[in-house]
């Protein structure tokens, strides 16, 4: 075992720096130290989790441990891989990943997204205040940003930063899960329609057109108005209205893929249609799907914020970014910080997802592949 491997085992990233991969090494070092700092600062809460810990706290602690393990493990693995050398076994994903690493905007986007999701899962360990508790309203409402309240307080004296941190949880989770639902459903429907063709294709695609033709916002407003709004409902509604675009995308790809010889060859090997769709078609359409998903998450964040802003999303006092902007709207001039910072969070996260989406598109585009 080389010295850099030992160094890496003690302090992830150090080995990479020693092995001449400064950028990756510094990135790894920074994430490792940040995570340790979070653990250290949140130590009182982590220590007390046995007695008072809520589900949220448990999720945060488990996520912290998992992320630490992930960073450490990845550092060891990537170093070992580099030292093993050899170019055999480089998948298209890896090639795309290498290309992505040369795209600074996409890297910034990835860093921002990683940070946002880290903040979201670790919220109870990071947030300085309880996001919902209202203390002495008279004394603490509309406090301007200061050291004790870095982003100020709102009309009920709640810390805006803490609400934003918890809001990230809600907003990002909604977007992620909704898009995951939409992508899985869309990919499956599109692949089946494209591969089977005939009346199955016709039926599925007309259904897709129907869903697509429905004005989404009106549908959302109607459903939310009919049923009382809840997290699950919002996720389901957003997810179940977004799949048609993916379905069409996938169907188009499958139509061209199924004429390719390796699908013929799979047929000639006696594989079942289910196997061909799941194992041979879908992995080959994933590239455009991933791009669409990344861009879709950005869209969904905006959509959810819009719904919450209109009062159709999650009900207050649940903090979501849309709700926070909505709260701040009432006193935009007197307390600009209440709406501005959550608004910025929306802009930054959507921008990050779009940057990554564009970067992925370039990295995965086979036409650019040399």
């Amino acid at each position, binding site marked *: 075992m080389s010295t850099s491997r030992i160094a890496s085992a003690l302090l992830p990233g150090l080995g990479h720096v020693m092995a001449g991969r400064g950028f990756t090494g510094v990135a790894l070092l920074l994430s490792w130290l940040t995570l340790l700092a979070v653990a250290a600062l949140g130590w009182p809460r982590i220590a007390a989790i046995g007695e008072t810990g809520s589900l949220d706290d448990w999720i945060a602690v488990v996520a912290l441990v998992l992320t630490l393990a992930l960073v450490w493990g990845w550092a060891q693995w990537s170093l070992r891989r580099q030292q093993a050398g050899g170019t055999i076994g480089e*998948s298209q994903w890896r090639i795309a990943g290498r290309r992505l690493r040369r795209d600074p905007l996409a890297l910034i986007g990835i860093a921002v997204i990683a940070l946002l999701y880290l903040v979201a899962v670790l919220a109870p360990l990071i947030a300085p205040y309880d996001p919902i508790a209202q203390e002495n309203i008279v004394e603490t409402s509309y406090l301007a940003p200061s050291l004790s309240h870095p982003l100020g307080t709102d009309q009920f004296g709640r810390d805006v930063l803490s609400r934003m941190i918890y809001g990230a949880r809600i907003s990002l989770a909604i977007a992620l899960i909704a898009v995951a639902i939409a992508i899985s459903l869309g990919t499956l429907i599109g692949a089946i329609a494209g591969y089977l063709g005939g009346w199955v294709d016709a039926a599925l695609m007309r259904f897709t057109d129907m869903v697509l033709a429905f004005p989404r916002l009106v549908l959302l407003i109607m459903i939310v108005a009919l049923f009382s709004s809840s997290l699950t409902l919002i996720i389901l509604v957003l997810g179940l209205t977004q799949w048609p675009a993916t379905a069409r995308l996938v169907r188009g790809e499958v139509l061209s893929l199924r004429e390719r*010889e390796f699908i013929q060859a799979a*047929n*000639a*090997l006696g594989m079942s249609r289910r196997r061909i769709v799941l194992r041979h078609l879908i992995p080959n359409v994933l590239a455009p799907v991933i791009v669409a998903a990344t861009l879709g998450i950005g869209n969904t964040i905006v959509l959810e914020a819009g719904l919450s802003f209109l009062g159709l999303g999650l009900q207050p006092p649940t903090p979501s970014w849309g709700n926070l902007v909505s709260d701040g709207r009432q006193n935009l001039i007197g307390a600009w910080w209440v709406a501005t910072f959550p608004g910025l969070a929306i802009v930054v996260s959507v921008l990050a997802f779009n940057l990554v989406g564009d970067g992925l598109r370039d990295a995965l585009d086979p036409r650019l592949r040399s």
Partner: protein
Amino acid sequence: MSDSARRPHDAAPAAHDTPAREASAREPLLSVRDLHTYFDTDAGTARAVDGVSFEIGRGEVLGIVGESGCGKSVTSLSIMRLIPQPPGRILTESSIRFRDEELTTASDKRMREIRGNDIAMIFQEPMTSLNPVFTIGDQIAEALRLHKGMKKKQAREEAVEVLRLVGVPDPERRVDSYPHELSGGQRQRVMIGIALCCEPDLLIADEPTTALDVTIQAQILELLLELRDRLGMSIMLITHDLGVVAEVCDRVAVMYAGEIVEQGDVRQIFQQPRHPYTEGLLLSVPKLGEKTDRLASIPGVVPAPTDWPVGCRFHDRCPYGWELCVREHPDLFPTGDGRVSRCWLEKHPERREQSPGYRPIGAGEEVETAAPAAGTTPAPAGEAGPRSAQRGSR
């Protein structure tokens, strides 16, 4: 013109289709009888394969030769039942017997068992025949797990052995490479490995060397023959390359316009082709050590499969054709030396001497006039000549 030639031929066509030679001596592995595969298109019904019959014995290499669009690939896909239906359909009078099983009526489930396990297929384009997102080891292992029920680890070890068998260098490492990391020849070796890993009885190779350069071609063909000897399988080799046929095949069936026009022992056919189409094909290939200014060529193109000519389907391109060819469709006539040929010359051998035959490229454009039209009978339906009749019908 003698009257007997105009009479429809006495015996049943199936009897002619069987090469007399040693067909009865052993039970054929695959026996295709009267295969008709049609496609319903906007332009009409395309009779892509129209009454093809042949047999492949155990351990035999049968070559199927012909131009693009003559139905070679459709024949092989019909055997595998991989014709998309619709628009394609295999007519009910067709019969494909593999060992003791009728494939045209077998269930889809049974066909899936047969594909890969009993009959395997390799394709022309090694660049696109492998799934780009999986390693080649995964792809070989997938076939092994599917048909041989192997466990993951065992299948991987076996995949290394398969790669070694088909001559991929450094198989322990190569097993983890992706298709885009291999050269065309190596990919074709991998394809052959996937096709052969389940030890099929019949390998259908659809132009396996067309996309490869010549030195690799020879290696791949050698590999196929070597594996045939080692595994004792039969090969149906589809190609338009006569050199390949001469090198590896035992028997050859020449296809033209959805039909077999000549079938027989490969050496006999190369030495003395009976059908004018075969003759044209052979004349259009340069010979080593022979100095020629221009090669002969077959004028014209294959007619559209929606619109085969009424008489002999080759008549409009044939230097020997006369009006009988325009009017009546020839059967596969036995030639007396164990072969069959779908040509009226078998019944009217004197016609062969009356025609100058094929000419080199550019030596004369209007080849069809070379055959002196039988002056006594006017061409049917007032058409000026067979070739213009074909032109007019498009």
